[in-house]
């Protein structure tokens, strides 16, 4: 189990780093789908190997929501936006460098926790990897220049936190998992509403236009 969770989490982290580098909106959505598939398989693997049928079910719902439902909404959101880079004319070298630094920070924070002597969980090796993904997602969200970029960051963050829950606890209680899905869905749908209204009022998704409230 250790090998497979580490491998899947490692690949997912790699995909997340590529996502930081990619600038086209469509490419980012595709990478988000790839990351979701890897993490969904991770959850299913943990569920299967630890004999937790509930977690396998959660993994199935996760795959349905993250690889089909949410990308559909994202594409609908992007439909009106021009297919331009997220940040035109800026190299993505520095963000990738920062993301690399965040991986180190994640290890600094999580390693002492995940390698506690008493921690006999075979999945503990994946905890810093999942946490690194969470930090990178947060980074994408915070530095996103438009609403779409921020939503992508939030989704990557949310995915990583789901993965952290899986490797640290073998799945939270059903109600909590349902709450997580509900949150992501509502956030994305609300965000779509906001994006539509924003486009109507500002004719752009640039959050720099949102400057009326100061102080």
């Amino acid at each position: 189990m250790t090998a497979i969770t580490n491998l899947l989490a490692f690949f997912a982290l790699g995909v997340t780093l590529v996502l930081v580098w990619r600038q086209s909106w469509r490419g980012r959505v595709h990478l988000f789908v790839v990351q979701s598939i890897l993490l969904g398989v991770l959850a299913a693997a943990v569920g299967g190997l630890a004999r937790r049928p509930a977690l396998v079910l959660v993994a199935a719902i996760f795959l349905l929501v993250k690889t089909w439902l949410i990308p559909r909404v994202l594409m609908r959101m992007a439909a009106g936006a021009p297919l331009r880079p997220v940040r035109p004319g800026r190299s993505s070298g520095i963000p990738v460098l920062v993301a690399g630094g965040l991986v180190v920070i994640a290890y600094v924070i999580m390693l002492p926790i995940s390698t506690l002597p008493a921690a006999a969980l075979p999945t503990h090796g994946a905890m810093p990897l999942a946490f690194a993904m969470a930090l990178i997602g947060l980074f994408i969200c915070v530095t996103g220049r438009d609403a779409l970029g921020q939503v992508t960051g939030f989704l990557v963050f949310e995915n990583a936190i789901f993965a952290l829950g899986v490797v640290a606890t073998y799945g939270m209680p059903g109600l909590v998992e349902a709450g997580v899905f509900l949150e992501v869905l509502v956030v994305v749908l609300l965000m779509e509403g906001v994006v539509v209204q924003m486009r109507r009022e500002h004719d752009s998704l640039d959050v720099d236009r949102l400057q009326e409230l100061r102080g």
Partner: protein
Amino acid sequence: MIVLMLVIPVTAAGVLALARGRVATAVHALATLLMLTSGLTVAARALRGVEATAFGGVLRVDALSGWMIGVIVLVAGLAAAEAPRYAHGSGQRMFYALFHLMVFTMLLAVSTDDVGVMWVAVEGTTLASVFLVNFERSRASLEAAYKYLLICSVGIAIAFVGTVLIYYAEAVRQQGVVEHAAQGLRWTTLLALAPALSPRVLQPAFVFLVIGYGTKAGLAPMHTWLPDAHSEAPAPVSALMSGVLLSVGAYAILRFKPIVDAAAGPLFAARILIVLGVLSLAVAAAFLWNPGNYKRMLAYSSVEHIGLVGLGLGFGGVLGVSGALLHVANHGLAKSVVFLLAGRIRAVYGTVELSGVQGLLRALPVTGRGFLLGMLALMGLPPFGLFTSEVMIFAAGFGAGHVWASAAGLVLLVIAFGGLLRAAHAMLFGPPPHVAPTASGLSAVPMAAALAALVLIGLAWPPGLAAALELATRAIVR
């Protein structure tokens, strides 16, 4: 009875999503009355020391929950009385339905014994209220709703990391047996196990929980969504958000604190809360000297008061925690009254700019006087209850040896006081404009009652209050 208390607002939200016109207002009034009756009954029983449970212990109301339920239903009752002024036209169904849904999520958050369910409920408060923030559908309210949704969703996700780590700590204690994950983790279980949990896991867990729930509570520096959302939302929603939603976030932190104290020593959590508390006071005091917009001014005053609550929790001890709890109740009543009156002022003057409002006392005698009294209460002047709770908090601080933090807090409090006083003076006095006073008199009765209750808490505690507060505090401080 707990189940009934929770079923009422959900049912009301369902019915109100369909009803319209006068029927909707009547249903809203009925639902509010039922909510008040059931909530106060549950709270009264819990505050006499009778714990109630339901659904195999998932719902559990102890004295602390009872205290919070009492505050929530009272503030929700005040806000509900003003709601019909705002809920009309096409948005009426959405307004009433989401209003009751928001009350439901807050009540659920404080009456569950399950760490995970509480997380879901606190998350639900954001989802229920974000549409209400954008109720006016203006550019500014859209911006506020977007910020609110994004920042609070990220915050609540960070709180999820903390919750996961608490589960992990339990798994570590069990040497890798993750049995609690399937059935949920209870406060009662956690409190009993706390001394055996690993401090190396619980310390970062608490940091994540404080950042996450602190975002909801509006503690600086995670408060950035708060002034926008509170100033753009319709007045009853601002009252609910400022009066109790922030306190629900603080409640979540409060529930985790004794667990971390038992596992990692009392100073760890205390230091974090004291630093955030002083920082919140500083941010608020700096802004209150140049507010510009009176609803934003009230929002920053909420940051100030939540900072005081954070200080009280950080100073700890029976005095500190009971001071913080009393402050939650006092602030809830005072701030909701002032926000509701600010909504009326805005309706008459047509602006939220401070420069556009003057001569309030002569133009709107009833509203103006209420606003004056509410502002005096928020400034922490005697004879209002906020003075009492602030004295308790700072007495606890000096008593526990946090001299510097207490002194800094007091100085910042005085600065904030000056700022509020200046703004209130500019609004209340001066030449009145030619405006026709709208409805007042009877509709001001609930707010007058709230102010009277504040005076009562400030002068002489009604019988039973001291015992109730003591019981609620004992749920946290052993």
